[in-house]
């Protein structure tokens, strides 16, 4: 039985894991870099250990150091979160060797999932359809160019070690391909220390639909329904929802059966995600397995009623799944907005710095997973996800309205955020009608519509804004001129 879990991560996901462990009476061990000395995960864990400098390679990716902490603190299990070491099979193997329960799939299965080519082969063997593309890793940019010309532009360059949209570029010409090849290589090396690139046909007007996989150590497997994550920027998800507007009960079951096959094909254990592209003609193509808990898992928790971290712990403890597929029912509609620190109008460039004040939305069927607190700092060393705002409703409309309300309540001082963009998106007919695709933002000209919305919002606030300016002048510029009488006429200065 797991009694003490080290969380090899930071930010909201570390807090998320701590929350469930605390409720279950399981001790938690946090690790932190210089940058995270004052972070909430350090304060909420049972114990906290310093592991090095801010740069991930010096701390959150430092396997030896993390292993030291696990051994010296008497930890019996490790939760890797997402990113960092979560899909590093070397780390999983290191834990296995040191008899530390790695909460996730086995190192071998993770290795197979991470190797996009071998994984694809396994899927083809299991009759799970995949996207047309290079049969193997590219040797170099020349090789990639040759394959691209064979299958025809546009193609996608993809680091097999990438994840969450990083290490991916869509290119239309040989020159673009050559530039991108270098960048993807560099990003992949910076993120996980290695790089290997494949080329795939880029399908247009596709939807990103993924399935939560769940398989125990005894071979029992189920899927926990789909999530549609089509609203993206730079191949990274922005807004997710479940159920998908284009998946009905029959389709859910049909693809769900493929997902169970996929999990079996790679001998996957614990929770994971099978990602699919859905072409405009309704066909589903397997793209990859994410061998970890996803950022967007809360919306699946909301519609399934399950606590996924508890489920992960139970599976890691060797317990058999407590349910069969037929026991699982989807209940209601959930939406997640990823609240990023970024400047929407500057091609989503990162925005970092101190956050002197923050108001976190709350209320019935609103959930906000975040590391933010008044006085915290958004660090340039880690990714731009500050908060995950999720809402649930008995209908999609209820969920959408709650999200709009919660977005309005969310105030983050000091950094640019994606909140205004989401307000605009959620109000469009295209979003309401479920006309989703991975190029949603461009297709429907969202950035310009956001600009229009902001202009209108300011226009509506002209009167109180002017009043606020008047009172400021009154109080902080002309104080000396004022009389104290209750009914005296004050003159404005100027």
């Amino acid at each position, binding site marked *: 039985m797991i009694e003490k879990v080290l969380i090899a991560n930071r930010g909201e996901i570390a807090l998320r894991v701590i929350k469930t462990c605390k409720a279950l009476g399981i001790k938690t061990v946090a690790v932190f870099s210089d940058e995270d000395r004052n972070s909430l995960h350090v304060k909420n864990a049972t114990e906290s250990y310093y592991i090095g400098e801010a740069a991930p390679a010096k701390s959150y990716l430092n396997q030896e150091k993390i292993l030291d902490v696990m051994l010296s603190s008497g930890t019996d299990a490790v939760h890797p979160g997402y990113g960092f070491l979560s899909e590093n099979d070397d780390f999983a193997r290191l834990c296995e060797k040191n008899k530390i329960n790695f909460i996730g799939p086995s190192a071998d299965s993770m290795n197979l999932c991470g190797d996009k080519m071998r994984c694809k082969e396994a899927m083809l063997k299991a009759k799970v359809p995949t996207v047309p593309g290079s049969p193997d890793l590219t040797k170099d940019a020349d090789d990639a160019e040759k394959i691209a010309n064979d299958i025809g532009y546009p193609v996608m360059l993809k680091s097999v070690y990438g994840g969450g949209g990083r290490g991916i570029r869509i290119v239309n010409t040989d020159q673009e391909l050559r530039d991108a090849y270098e960048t993807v290589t560099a990003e992949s090396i*910076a993120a996980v220390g290695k790089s290997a690139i494949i080329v795939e046909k880029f399908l247009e007007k596709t939807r990103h639909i993924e399935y939560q996989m769940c398989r125990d150590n005894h071979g029992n497997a189920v899927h926990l329904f789909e999530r549609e994550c089509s609203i993206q920027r730079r191949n990274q998800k922005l807004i997710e929802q479940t159920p998908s507007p284009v998946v009905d009960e029959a389709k859910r079951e049909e693809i769900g059966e493929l997902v169970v096959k996929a999990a079996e094909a790679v001998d996957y254990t614990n929770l994971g995600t099978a990602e699919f592209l859905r072409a405009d003609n309704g066909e589903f193509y397997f793209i990859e397995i994410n061998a970890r808990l996803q950022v967007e898992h809360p919306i699946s928790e909301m519609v399934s009623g399950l606590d996924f971290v508890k489920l992960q712990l139970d599976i890691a403890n060797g317990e058999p799944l407590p349910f069969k597929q037929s026991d699982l029912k989807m209940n209601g509609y959930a939406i997640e907005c990823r609240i990023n620190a970024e400047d929407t109008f500057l091609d989503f460039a990162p925005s*970092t710095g101190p956050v002197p004040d923050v108001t976190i939305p709350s209320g019935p069927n609103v959930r906000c997973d975040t590391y933010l607190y008044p006085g915290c700092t958004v660090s*340039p060393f880690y990714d731009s996800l500050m908060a995950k705002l999720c809402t649930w409703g008995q209908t999609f409309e209820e969920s959408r309205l709650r999200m709009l309300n919660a977005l309005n309540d969310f105030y983050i001082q000091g950094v640019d955020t994606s909140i205004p963009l989401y307000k605009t998106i959620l109000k469009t007919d295209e979003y309401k009608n479920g006309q989703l695709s991975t190029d949603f933002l461009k297709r429907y000209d969202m950035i310009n519509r956001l600009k229009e919305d902001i202009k209108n919002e300011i226009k509506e*606030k002209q009167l109180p804004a002017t009043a606020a300016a*008047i*009172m400021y002048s*009154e109080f*902080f510029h002309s104080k000396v001129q004022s009389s104290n009488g*209750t009914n005296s006429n004050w003159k404005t200065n100027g």
Partner: protein
Amino acid sequence: MDFKVENIEEIFSGEVIKKISNDEYLIKIQDKEHQLQILNINSNKMEFVLDNQFHSVRYIENQTAEMKIVLDGTSITINMHTHLDDIVYKNSGGAETGNAQLNLRSQIPGKVVSINVEEGSDVKQDDIICVLESMKMQVSIKSHKDGKIKSLKIKEGNSVNKNDVIAEIE
């Protein structure tokens, strides 16, 4: 006093007419009177009720003729002057814009991972000058014009802030 809210055309005149009680005021905006009650105020923040509607304002930045506020969660810039019509906005001049601009500035904060030019190099518009890394993303900074690198203001491995000068290009 005249007030102009951001890029909205209209100019509003406004003033305090009367202090009704310790925290209540009668103000006039564009010839219409409004009741305003202050719930609390300090130099950074005010909570007030205007015509029975609650508002919260944070004063972010104040200069003589320009004020940046966050009103009920929305960032707004307000220009103000005794007679706003007379002012030539500093932003309407041609300095530091387009082709005439000497400085290439970074619009994001980040760490310099590589520099692709040297002092004296000839560059074309959109040539990559350097690559920054921030939040695990690599972002290329491109030249804003054709020209020659007069000086480079960055070093590999250093951090740059938003608006820092990357290079002078002439």
